[in-house]
């Protein structure tokens, strides 16, 4: 059934493809081009990044496909040269089909020459999932199957739906013909799992596949007879071959762990590698990487932006726009898995959860073949040292894998790195859990305090810092009130600064004292009094929780001791000592926000009672210190505001420039278009 339907005449010779070959090749080509994010000749804008030309297959998936053919690297190089891809620089349809033919030739044992593709050849075999050409191997009757497969595959391209899995599951149970009619190279097929385009349904919870393939394996390992052409059997055959390969692979490793989600488990060396990469981006392993840094880094992996976006969604568990070390490891792992052809899971697998990763930091489990092709599949990587490190990962259990000599070199590098990394491991394990919460709070504070307050919908980590401080302030108002009031004698009117500063607020506070408190419950009054203060002083914590916290740590305690006592007697005697009381409250308020740990205040308030007797002189010193601090804070605030204004101005100026540049560009483009028709003639 030879049809002279050529795949293209790029090299001057008509390429004779049989019908089966034609369909197979065109579908493979579509997949290679489509997998890169844009179909041949059309596609979303992301395609432009991955695909050099409009109608061509991207080098990445094509390279993966070729590697899946299990041919040695030199042969593949020869093939790419012969097919003309090197010459033209990309894999157009012609080149692709010629290459596939050459692969078929090489797999049949023929020398890699242009002449060899002139004769009738079996289809090339690729150790891949659904599109297994081995299934369509040379049998015209199987053509029907290909048609079924194509829509099936196309749907799979876009939907990683579990339903398909289960349908195929059931189909695999039905005994089908074995696809393995190609004797010479069939054994390696079982062992190698370089799934190039992610059609393996290996997701975390598809472990049900494992018992099924064991059953399906038996009927499958039969020599292929004439396929009775049941199209429905074709898809399951893909699945079966895939499952078979996986299950064979899985067997030796299931011993280690009975976890079904093998591909999502991070091994030792992977973890070390990730940690190293993390440290290259962010020296402190207990801190986190910001979104933009991580974006730049992950973009280098050449995955499409939607995929990276999805990976980010999966791995950034707390949705804070930054990656901690375990989140980073999970993201990296997902990227690596994706590059090796695993489809992305619907949800973050349990072994990639941040808590799990933190807890089980040193993991002895060995991941099987996730990385044997990863090192090869990082072509034009901008960081060559990444490549070296990647190679190091493609080891362990590769004995039966026909991977080139990278294994040897990678082993050496691995030894060198291991000793270094082991020391870091323990440190990271200890630190990561403890420190994760802290840095997040601190850094999230200024940017997100307002936003989180306005949202209020659900508790998020970003709102911790601001709301905790405010809550601390509010909470702090009640506790310090209890101390009794035999401290009427302390008159703090000596500090003129404070008096001046708080003069305008004095009438407010005075009016705030609603019930004339004869001598009684100090508790309600200070809370009422403090409210007007509260608002004024809110700026302080948000602006400078950290600086003042450290600076005034030492002073806070003695001052808080005195402050509550002052506040206590201020409330009942407010009217008697007008100017002395207000200063005390600001002190208290001010230091409370600076010290978010509210527990300090309660013990200090109790201590303040007995200690307040001897606090005559230190008051003035205290007030002077507090006033100095206050001034320091105010100057800092002013400076920040000025900086803000400057930056805002700069921003608007830059926006202006941007607009002007845009207009210039538009004008230039118009000119270019006007000139163009002239040159054509």
């Amino acid at each position, binding site marked *: 059934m030879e049809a002279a339907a050529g795949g293209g005449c790029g090299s001057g010779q008509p390429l004779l493809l049989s019908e089966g070959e034609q369909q197979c090749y065109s579908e493979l080509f579509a997949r290679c081009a489509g997998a890169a994010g844009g179909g041949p000749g059309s596609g979303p804008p992301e395609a432009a990044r991955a695909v050099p030309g409009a109608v061509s297959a991207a080098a990445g998936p094509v390279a993966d496909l070729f590697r899946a053919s299990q041919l040695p690297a030199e042969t593949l190089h020869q093939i790419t040269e012969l097919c003309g891809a090197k010459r033209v620089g990309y894999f157009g349809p012609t080149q692709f089909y010629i290459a596939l033919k050459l692969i078929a030739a090489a797999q049949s044992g023929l020398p890699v020459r242009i002449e060899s593709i002139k004769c009738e050849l079996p289809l090339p075999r690729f150790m891949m999932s659904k599109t297994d050409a081995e299934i369509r191997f040379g049998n015209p009757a199987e053509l029907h199957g290909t048609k079924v497969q194509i829509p099936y595959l196309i749907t799979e391209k876009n939907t990683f739906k579990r339903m398909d899995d289960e349908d195929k599951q059931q189909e695999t149970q039905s005994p089908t013909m074995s696809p393995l009619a190609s004797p010479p190279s069939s054994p390696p097929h079982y062992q190698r799992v370089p799934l190039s385009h992610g059609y393996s349904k290996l997701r975390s919870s598809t472990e049900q596949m494992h018992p099924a393939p064991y059953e399906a394996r038996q009927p499958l390992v039969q020599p292929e007879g004439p396929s009775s052409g049941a199209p429905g059997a074709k898809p399951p055959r893909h699945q079966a071959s895939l499952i078979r390969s996986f299950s064979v692979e899985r067997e030796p490793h299931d011993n280690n762990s009975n976890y079904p989600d093998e591909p999502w488990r991070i091994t030792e060396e992977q973890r070390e590698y990730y940690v190293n990469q993390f440290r290259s981006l962010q020296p402190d392993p207990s801190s986190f990487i910001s979104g933009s840094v991580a974006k730049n880094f*992950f973009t280098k992996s050449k995955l499409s932006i939607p995929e990276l*976006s*999805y990976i980010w*969604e999966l791995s950034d568990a707390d949705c804070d*726009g930054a990656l901690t070390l375990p989140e980073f490891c999970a993201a990296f792992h997902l990227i690596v898995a994706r590059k090796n052809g695993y489809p992305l899971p*619907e949800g973050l697998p349990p072994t990639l959860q941040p808590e799990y990763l933190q807890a089980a930091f040193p993991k002895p489990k060995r991941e099987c073949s996730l990385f044997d092709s990863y090192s090869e599949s990082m072509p034009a990587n901008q960081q060559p040292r990444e490549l070296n490190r990647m190679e190091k990962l493609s080891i362990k259990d590769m004995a039966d894998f026909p991977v080139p000599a990278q294994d040897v070199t990678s082993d050496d590098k691995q030894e060198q790195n291991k000793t270094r990394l082991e020391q870091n491991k323990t440190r990271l394990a200890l630190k990561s859990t403890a420190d994760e919460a802290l840095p997040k709070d601190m850094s999230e504070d200024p940017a997100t305090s307002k936003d989180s307050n306005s949202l209020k*919908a659900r508790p998020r980590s970003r709102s911790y810092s601001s709301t905790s401080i405010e809550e601390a302030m509010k909470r702090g108002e009640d506790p310090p009130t209890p101390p009794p009031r035999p401290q009427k004698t302390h008159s703090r009117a000596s500090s003129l600064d404070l008096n001046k500063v708080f003069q305008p607020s004095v009438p407010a506070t005075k009016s705030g004292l609603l019930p004339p408190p004869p001598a009684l419950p100090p508790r309600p009054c200070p809370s009422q009094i403090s409210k007007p203060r509260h608002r004024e002083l809110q700026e302080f914590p948000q602006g400078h929780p950290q600086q003042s916290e450290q600076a005034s740590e030492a002073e806070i305690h003695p001052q808080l001791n005195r402050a509550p006592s002052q506040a206590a007697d201020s409330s009942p005697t407010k009217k008697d000592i007008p100017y002395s009381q207000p200063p005390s409250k600001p002190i208290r308020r001010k230091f409370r926000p600076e010290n978010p740990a509210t527990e300090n205040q309660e013990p200090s308030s109790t201590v303040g009672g007995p200690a307040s007797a001897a606090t005559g002189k230190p008051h003035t010193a205290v007030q002077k210190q507090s006033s100095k601090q206050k001034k320091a804070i105010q100057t800092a605030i002013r400076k920040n505001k000025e900086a803000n204004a400057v930056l805002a101005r700069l921003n608007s100026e830059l926006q202006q420039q941007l607009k002007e540049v845009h207009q210039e560009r538009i004008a230039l483009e118009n000119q270019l278009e006007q000139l163009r028709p002239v040159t054509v003639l």
Partner: protein
Amino acid sequence: MAVCVAVIAKENYPLYIRSIPTENELKFHYMVHTSLDVVDEKISAMGKALVDQRELYLGLLYPTEDYKVYGYVTNSKVKFVMVVDSSNTALRDNEIRSMFRKLHNSYTDVMCNPFYNPGDRIQSRAFDSMVTSMMVQVC
């Protein structure tokens, strides 16, 4: 409960629009588009001075005989429009508010993703699943 959910960007182009009865999508697109006028009216009615106190939830924008359209706008002028079935009388204002809140939270999560460029269509699966959960119902 919702029949159609749309996220409109500040410049009034849709970032995300999805409706349940997929055959009549165009009608919902049209409804959402026309409701933008009402949204703008409500925003401008508040006046610039009241921006701080402006409610994010705009409430019922306009009812038709089959559907009711609710609106919600964020501080960055991103609008959420939701069309619900009029026959679903059990749907109270509070529920609509909570639905909008969920939308807003998911939208913020989408924003947090550094790979998302503001102004792109929203292709986040988490956002999709959240909207599906809001839309999937007895029908």
